């Protein structure tokens, strides 16, 4: 009996210890953690968040009241256009005004803002169990975009929030037309299909460039038709993303591994020459085209293919999106067949960063975390009828297997394997403003790639010698 009692006590003690360990450890935390509970000390706080206006953020805006309802934290979620969000956000951060608590930043802004020490690292906040959702699962975020964007010198600055990426976008009705397929096979010796390599993209561009009066897919053309359309205006920062893709795929790039300007290399010259050659098959107005004009041209049906930002497709290839909606096919950005190891895709992964001047850092951190939370992301994708995932798991959502857009989502998934954030260069905007007009002149045939890159190298060297922030 005594023995039993002892055993019983031991068992009881064992149970108590096990229970204590169980309730004290992570599993309890995971089960009990909620935004409502974590936000209790901050209920009633108002935070100001600046973000970019695209259909993705418009959808997010509809979800923000749910966060307020759950946490009591009021969010002034302000959306501005691409250029304005950069300028106003930077002005707020540089000036120390602290009007915004969190600001959406494109990867190219990281260099100047980190150099200016305007961003708050979120490491301490992430380590705070009371604030961080234990199920946040940051490992689910898409790499290499995420880490190349938010990490610097061993610290994390915000969360990857928008995963803008470029994809290959082509006219499926033309590529699958029997007459065109037969003619292409005869001329190029391989079947006509969405381009997988840069060289195939060039062949398709050449093949489909036709004058008015010629036939396209069995119909006589009333106007000229173009084999490709690409961004060409130097005013927008995304122009650089396009020509940089070619350089990267040729094994080159703007900087070498030490962060020194590395423009006039044989790889870059070859890449830019190839890129400029594509201009022969592009609409005459390509030098005026921004990231917005390219989808417009594709939607108007005067070009066969492009490399464009995938989120713009959502506005064109949808019911009521124009005469060519539903007639497109997509793929990851083509790679250079001569150097497949250097495969790279263009994109502009963007983060929500915490202002160092914010007076509501915990409440803002909760909101930033909520934005990228799995549940929020699932709602965002569902509410938008699809989207541009920041999480790998988002590709498994039902809405993402919708057959009409499957080709688009597969293209995004392919591209995103290779999308990296821009290197963290404090003088990025000055370098960009120096290079973009020179590169554009290569496109319109005013300069050769060699001349432009030689001149560019000289000019960029006068801006900086060690152009990247030391890691």
């Amino acid at each position, binding site marked *: 009996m005594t023995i039993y009692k002892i055993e019983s006590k031991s068992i009881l003690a064992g149970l108590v210890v096990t229970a204590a360990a169980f309730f004290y450890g992570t599993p309890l935390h995971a089960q009990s953690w909620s935004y409502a509970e974590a936000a209790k000390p901050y209920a009633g706080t108002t935070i100001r968040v600046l973000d970019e206006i695209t259909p993705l953020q418009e959808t997010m805006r509809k979800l923000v009241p749910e966060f307020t309802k759950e946490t009591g934290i009021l969010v002034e979620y302000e959306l501005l256009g691409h250029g304005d969000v*950069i*300028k106003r956000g*930077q*002005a707020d951060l*540089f*000036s120390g005004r602290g009007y915004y608590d969190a600001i959406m930043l494109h990867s190219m802004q990281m260099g*100047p803002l980190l*150099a*200016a020490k*305007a961003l708050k690292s979120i490491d301490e906040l992430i380590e705070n169990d009371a604030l961080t959702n234990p199920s946040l699962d940051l490992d689910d975020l898409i790499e290499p975009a995420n880490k190349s964007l938010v990490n610097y010198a061993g610290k994390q600055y915000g969360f990857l929030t928008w995963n803008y990426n470029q994809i290959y976008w082509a006219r499926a009705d033309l590529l699958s037309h029997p007459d065109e397929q037969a003619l292409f096979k005869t001329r190029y010796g391989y079947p006509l299909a969405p381009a997988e390599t840069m060289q195939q993209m060039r062949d398709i561009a050449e093949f489909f460039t036709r004058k*008015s009066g010629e036939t396209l897919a069995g119909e006589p053309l009333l*106007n*000229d038709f*173009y084999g490709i359309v690409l961004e*060409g*205006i*130097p*005013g*927008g920062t995304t122009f650089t993303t396009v020509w940089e893709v070619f350089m990267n795929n040729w094994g080159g790039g703007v900087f070498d591994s030490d962060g020194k300007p590395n423009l006039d290399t044989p790889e870059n010259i070859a890449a830019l020459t190839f890129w400029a050659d594509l201009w022969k098959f592009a*609409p*005459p*107005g*390509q*030098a*005026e*085209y921004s990231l917005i*004009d390219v989808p*417009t*041209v594709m939607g*108007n049906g*005067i070009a066969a293919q492009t490399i464009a930002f995938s989120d713009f497709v959502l506005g064109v290839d949808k019911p009521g999106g124009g005469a060519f909606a539903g007639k497109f096919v997509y793929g990851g950005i083509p790679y250079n067949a001569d150097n497949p190891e250097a495969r790279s895709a263009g994109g502009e992964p963007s983060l929500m960063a915490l202002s160092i001047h914010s007076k509501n850092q915990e409440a803002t951190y909760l909101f930033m975390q909520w934005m990228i939370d799995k549940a929020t992301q699932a709602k965002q994708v569902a509410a938008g009828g699809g989207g541009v995932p920041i999480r790998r798991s988002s590709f498994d959502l039902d809405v993402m297997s919708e057959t009409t857009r499957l080709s688009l989502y597969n293209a995004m998934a392919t591209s995103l394997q290779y999308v990296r954030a821009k290197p963290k260069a404090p*003088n990025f*905007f*000055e370098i960009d*403003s120096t290079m973009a*007009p*020179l590169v*554009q*002149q290569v496109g*319109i045939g*005013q300069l050769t790639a060699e001349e432009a890159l030689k001149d560019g190298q000289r000019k960029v060297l006068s801006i900086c010698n060690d152009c990247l922030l030391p890691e």
Partner: protein
Amino acid sequence: MKTTIRPLENRWYPYALLAPAFLVLVVVSLVPFLFAMFLSFYEINFGRIGGFAGFSNYSRLMDNERTWNSLWVATKFILIAFPLQFILGLGGALLLNKRVWGRSMILPLLFIPTMMAPIVVGLVWKVMFAGSWGLLSYNIVERFDFLQGTSVFSSPDYALLALALVDVWQWTPFMMLAFFAGLQALPVSPYLAAAVDGATPMQMFFRLTLPLMAPLMVVIGMLRFIDAFKVFDTIYILTAGGPGTSTEVPSLLAYRMSFEQWRIGESAAFAVLVWIGFFVLCSLFYHTAKKKLNVF
């Protein structure tokens, strides 16, 4: 009954009347200008004022090819736009002054381009001439291959000319209306006397109209000249300074330096230099007009 003005009232009254306008000028023009001048002598990193930099911002600016290019682009722009606006404006005003049919309908219409915000003007012309999807470029310019494989705003040869013509479209009506108002205010008697003396219309134009209109022409011309130098919105919308830097005017370059690249010190130095340049030019203009044309 004799009215007397007290000496004190007489002395301060004009200043009191001018004070509000002067105060506004000081606040919105002089203070920012002095601050810009101050900034131009300092090292400014990412919007934060650092140490005294002497003339280094000025020397960097002078060494920058883009500075000189932008000034040359602005000069070409003015050389194309300004004479056209002046001649067409004056010609139109003379025509309107002839009591042409439908004048009361034409006059309000002339206000439309001038009243439009430059950004809207840019968008209107983009819709017309945007390469390969603009209404006129797609249906006319490219269909008949007028520019041989390029578009209006993509061509280094035509982009600046086209931008100048957009400016002519927007501002010629303003010149026309201003000159028309001037013509309407001219006294009739000199013309009657000239007619009695048997003067031809050409003689009347060169001997009467032009000299009588000279003060107005100088003022309007100077304002338009300054305004044409400051053109920004339409260029920003239509070409963003391209192709290359062939349409990059000083305002656009200064904007980029300030708000895109955060080179505040250099852009402040640019503003100061442009101001000095204009001060010298306008002073020359003023003194020449005063001396040669008996204006002011």
